[in-house]
């Protein structure tokens, strides 16, 4: 198999494939290193197509010697052609990758599937995470399925739907009185002295690999082709950079005729450290205190900020931000043109696509993929009050009266 070691992204120092995430020489992030030279393109493609209908069909590009089994799984979500959305935005070809169609309704099932498999391989009994909500749902569910004990740390002001959809799995839910960045700091401190697998702290190098499977699926679903542009939400920047990495790895092996396309990142204006640094021409992000309805993207101190900035610039893309009102409009636009109801993060992504279209950044000949990472039912407050309901008595007369008064005209 192709997985080799952990390697520091900054200085290249090599480490064993254990639960570590920081280079001891320079404090840079560790990443999984592979040797893909032994993979034959045609054989690999056959193996993928004959593989299971989950992320494990891409096992050659995931950090395991032997593909593990996972109880809940993730992946193989629909890629939908969104012609009505494209028409409304004056674009040629738009596709929606609907990752709300995962077991706990967000892309986090991909990263958690990989992290929990690694936690089990390394012999951990307890898993944990610092979460803005979707990860909490996912860790709680996958831990329950695997029979592992779990601790889930979230900011105490999280949306009720995300709290309820986490606690139900029997996890130990810890609501921290602070922002996500406080939660993250606490978990980083706790991971120093506890023998727990924090999926996005000490297992982060493995966890992050799961995000590459979004690129693999998009490419496979397009017939082993790379789209011209991908629009992705940015919180820590990990998903954004790993999607590009996925395309690049397949290009390296010869499964694709090119690597990562133009990469556009999407942030909420109320938490836009990466978009601000992009606009200012900075190489690093200055942390911010988040204030946005897009709580799943509310990371004020993004770990992969410098790499997200570099990727956006290198690929000819950008990192843009949108207001809370634009986010609500984005949710509505996606719902009424594609039938996909997304959470606030998807509203951010859709609104940024609209912004790029209006700005003239996207050529009508381009094939664009919009990555929708989560489910609208988790952030219902965002759509409350955005439409009217017509109330009638249970009689034909009452209904017809309402109809004739144009009360239903908008429906």
């Amino acid at each position: 198999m192709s997985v080799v070691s952990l390697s520091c992204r900054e200085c290249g120092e090599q480490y064993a494939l254990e639960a570590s995430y920081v280079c001891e020489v320079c404090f840079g992030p560790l990443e999984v290193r592979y040797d893909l030279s032994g993979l034959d393109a045609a054989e690999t493609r056959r193996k993928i197509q004959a593989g299971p209908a989950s992320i494990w069909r891409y096992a050659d590009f995931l950090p395991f010697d032997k593909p593990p089994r996972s109880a809940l799984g993730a992946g193989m979500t629909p890629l939908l052609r969104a012609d009505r959305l494209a028409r409304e935005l004056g674009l040629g070809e738009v596709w929606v990758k609907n990752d709300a169609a995962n077991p706990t309704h967000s892309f986090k099932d991909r990263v958690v599937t990989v992290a929990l498999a690694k936690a089990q391989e390394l012999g951990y009994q307890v898993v944990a995470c610092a979460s803005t909500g979707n990860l909490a749902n996912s860790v709680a569910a996958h831990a329950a399925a695997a029979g592992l004990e779990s601790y889930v740390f979230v900011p105490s002001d999280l949306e009720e739907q995300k709290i309820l959809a986490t606690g139900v799995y029997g996890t130990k839910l810890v609501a921290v009185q602070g922002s996500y960045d406080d939660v993250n700091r606490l978990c980083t401190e706790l991971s120093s002295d506890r023998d727990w697998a924090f999926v996005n702290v000490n297992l982060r190098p493995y966890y992050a690999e799961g995000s590459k499977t979004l690129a693999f699926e998009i490419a496979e679903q397009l017939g082993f082709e790379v789209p011209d542009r991908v629009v992705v939400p940015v919180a820590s920047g990990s998903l954004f950079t790993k999607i590009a990495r996925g395309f690049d790895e397949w290009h390296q092996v010869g499964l694709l005729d090119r690597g990562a396309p133009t990469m556009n990142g999407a942030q909420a204006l109320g938490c836009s450290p990466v978009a601000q640094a992009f606009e200012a021409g900075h190489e690093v992000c200055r942390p911010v205190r988040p204030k946005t309805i897009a709580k799943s993207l509310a990371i004020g101190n993004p770990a992969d900020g410098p790499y997200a900035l570099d990727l956006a610039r290198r690929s000819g893309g950008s990192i843009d931000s949108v207001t809370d009102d634009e986010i609500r409009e984005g949710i509505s636009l996606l719902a009424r043109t594609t039938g996909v109801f997304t959470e606030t993060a998807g509203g951010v992504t859709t609104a940024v696509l609209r912004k790029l279209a209006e700005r003239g950044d996207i050529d009508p000949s381009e094939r664009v993929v919009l990555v929708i990472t989560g489910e609208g039912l988790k952030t219902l407050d965002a759509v409350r009050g955005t439409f009217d309901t017509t109330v009638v008595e249970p009689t034909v007369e009452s209904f017809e009266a309402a109809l004739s008064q144009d009360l239903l005209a908008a429906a």
Partner: protein
Amino acid sequence: MSVTVKIPTQLRSVTGGESDTEVEDAGTVGDVLDRLYERYDGLRSRIAEDGDLRRFVNVYVGGEDIRFLDGLETSVEDGDEVTILPAVAGG
């Protein structure tokens, strides 16, 4: 006066395994770090570069990121807790 400094796992190989330590008579976070550099051989190059902190190192005073305060010029008082942590977690 003295402040407590919490050392992350990744730096304990240079602190002889110590997970926290006391620093006396330091006025700013920069002073605190300078004392630590004198005390622990090899610490400076791990977390600092060209006189500033490396970009993947976070330092907190009382749980607050020093980039929201005055950076290395942030003043410290008796009993404060200074925490050094890797920045690459989360998300």
